């Protein structure tokens, strides 16, 4: 009487309580020993299957995208800080100019503005009907203090820093 396939399988899987009896039979039965060898060869084949590498990194999907701030180079961080500092200095410089300038602005009333606009409009219509442009001078428009060059320079510097800094940040983000 030979061993069944189930007995041989369970023997190799260590899932039998009859190990001793099966081994005794295998020692004396060439046919069952040959069947066991075939099964062992299959086990060896399955064990020999090598692992295959992934063609893409699945983990990348789960890892957070690196944030912009830590990836900024040191010099760019310095530029941004410098930009903020320049803006602050420009603001401090600009405050006295504004405090001087604002009271000096003569603001005409709303009604005066409306009359001005109406008269300009009428004179334009006249000029159009006569095929000639009027030579109109604005008289009631506000006037500004002359010494604005420092303020404009400061604002221009801040603007340049702002444009330059943001350009660099956006370029870095698009990479």
């Amino acid at each position, binding site marked *: 009487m030979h061993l069944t396939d189930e007995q041989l*399988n369970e023997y190799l899987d260590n899932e039998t309580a009859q190990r001793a009896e099966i081994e005794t039979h295998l020692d004396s039965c060439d046919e069952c020993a040959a069947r066991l060898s075939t099964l062992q060869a299959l086990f060896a084949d*399955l064990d020999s*299957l090598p692992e*295959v590498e*992934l063609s893409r990194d699945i983990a990348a999907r789960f890892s957070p995208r690196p944030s912009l701030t830590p990836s900024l180079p040191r010099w760019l961080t310095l530029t941004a800080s410098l930009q903020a500092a320049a803006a602050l200095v420009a603001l401090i410089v600009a405050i006295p100019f504004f405090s001087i300038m604002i009271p000096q602005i003569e603001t005409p009333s709303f009604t005066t503005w409306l009359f001005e606009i109406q008269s300009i409009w009428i004179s334009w219509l006249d000029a159009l009907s006569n095929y000639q442009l009027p030579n109109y001078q604005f008289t009631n428009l506000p006037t500004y203090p002359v010494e604005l060059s420092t303020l404009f320079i400061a604002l221009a510097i801040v603007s340049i820093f702002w444009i330059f800094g943001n350009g660099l940040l956006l370029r870095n983000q698009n990479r």
Partner: protein
Amino acid sequence: MNAPTDRDLILRARRGDPEAYGDLVSRHQTSVFNVCYRILHNRADAEDLAQETFIRALDRLHTFDLEREFSPWIRRVAANLCLNHIEAQKPSAPLDEERDEDKTQSPGEQVEVKERSEQIRSALASLPPQYRVVVELRHYQELSYDEIASELNIPLSDVKSHLFRARKLLAEKLHAPD
């Protein structure tokens, strides 16, 4: 400094640290992919299912028993997903012709290994889906008959019959006299 254990990474991932889960995936993605590839024998499907496995695992991470090993658990999740995938998708996708490679061997030996590996993969792919999964769980994940029955929610007798028939079919394909 020692590398964090799987348990550490799981705890951090549970607290909402996505980097920790990314590290965990990085650590196990190849073995999970290979589970899928052995069962599906199609690289694109195997990669998609491996990714799906980690997505599912992330959803269930809060229920994972920290006393258990993560690797066997995630590989069993992958095997189950593959089985569901095969059963839901008929007819099956075309099988890959990809060959395995072992760079430690000579070119002649490599060709032999590739051919033999391909024969084994093809033989596995020709099995019915349930047989493939039982072979995967027994041979590659080393689960006992009882554990396979519990994992697949099938009777112990079915586990044995699937496994023994699968082996018989594989032996006929792989050890048939030329």
